[in-house]
């Protein structure tokens, strides 16, 4: 891809992310009224849920790139899928941390097995962390690219199945199911703040993704150059 085009894309994404997140934070702290039941602490919602959704989006993007790799065997999709998983794991960790803080302030514990989202993200985090272990222990090459792609695809299949499993496990272990008292219908101001933060987070992920991908491509190019010169 033409590098100047990619640079423009990067700048646009970073600028969008900056503006949107700045606006979103301001809205979340100053403009949006307190939620009726939860009160002030509900405001974590405006970052926690967009981060979670962004993580899902990253994993989905990684699976799409993985599918393209297996379809076309073009090597560039391997780096793209890898970077997307990397971003997904970063946002996954953020989901777990912000979710834990929200759990602490809502229910008094840093971790609750009764929160479906938290448990699902824990399982996904373990799964995608193993992705990196897989990449580090196999020699670079088309074989590793294929295996990583297959693994990334298994990940998105795991998301709904894990969610079902966690729901079934609740009846088993009888924990108290913890859900936040977010009303099923968001009011206008809440929805606006949420959407601003969501698009902001997605732009942030996109900007980090393009940066990281450039870095990884540079690494690969430099390695080739070094081999050519020695």
């Amino acid at each position: 891809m033409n590098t100047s085009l990619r640079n423009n894309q990067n700048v646009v994404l970073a600028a969008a992310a900056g503006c949107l997140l700045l606006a979103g934070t301001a809205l979340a702290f100053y403009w949006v009224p307190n939620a009726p039941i939860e009160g002030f602490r509900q405001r974590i919602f405006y970052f926690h849920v967009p981060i979670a959704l962004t993580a899902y989006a990253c994993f989905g993007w990684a699976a799409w790139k993985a599918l393209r790799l297996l379809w076309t065997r073009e090597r560039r999709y391997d780096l793209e899928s890898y970077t997307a998983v990397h971003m997904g794991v970063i946002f996954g960790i953020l989901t777990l941390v912000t979710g834990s803080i929200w759990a602490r302030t809502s229910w008094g514990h840093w971790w609750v097995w009764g929160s479906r989202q938290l448990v699902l993200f824990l399982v996904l985090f373990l799964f995608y962390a193993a992705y990196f272990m897989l990449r580090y222990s196999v020699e670079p090459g088309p074989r590793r690219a294929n295996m990583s792609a297959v693994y990334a695809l298994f990940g998105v299949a795991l998301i709904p199945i894990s969610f079902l499993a966690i729901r079934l496990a609740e009846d088993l272990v009888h924990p108290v199911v913890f859900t936040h008292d977010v009303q099923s219908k968001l009011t206008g101001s809440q929805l606006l703040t949420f959407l601003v933060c969501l698009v902001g987070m997605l732009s942030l992920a996109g900007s980090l993704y393009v940066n990281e991908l450039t870095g990884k491509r540079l690494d690969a190019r430099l390695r080739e150059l070094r081999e050519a010169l020695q």
Partner: protein
Amino acid sequence: MTFLGDVLVLARKDLLLELRSRDTVPAMLLFVVSTLVVFHFALPSDASATAQTGLLWVALLFTALLGLVRAFVAEREERILDGLVLAPCDRSAIWLGKVIGVMAFLVAAEVVALPAYALFFRPVGWELVAAVALADVGLAAVGTLLAAMAAAGRARELLLPLLFLPLVIPIVVGGVGASATDDPGRYLAFLGLYDAVFAILSWASFEYVVTE
């Protein structure tokens, strides 16, 4: 040769190898019984049915891991897998042949493990047997694919558990649910769903895992 013929030949090879060398299945049998004994000491005396069932499933998971690590060791040592990949057979025949072999090992281990569990802990009902049977399919299908991946890497005994455990959490949920609650049907259906989804995925993607 037909697809099914290839599968049977490959499965037969694994089973014959095991019959002659007898290194994997006896280890799995001993491992699962020792683990159950360790769990007796790890559980308090008033442990609930769910806790006891849960530990049985943990024991089964780790026994399966033991068997799976061995599944591709011989292949790697003698580069048989490369030869098989060059052979004019459908790559997924290799997968299915291995799956049948792994399932045979698992069933052999469970034939000893379940009576041992009934002896040490609590009686075994039909739901547990059905759950174990369904779980075996899922464990073998996913495990064979992951073992092939791990075999290509460096620290494969370390890598396989890391890849395996997050993926089989749903099997544990299904298995424990089927044997410890009043509504086993739901959990057995869930195990069936897991098997269907991941067996198809593993079948379809094995080819990509073993070739360039």
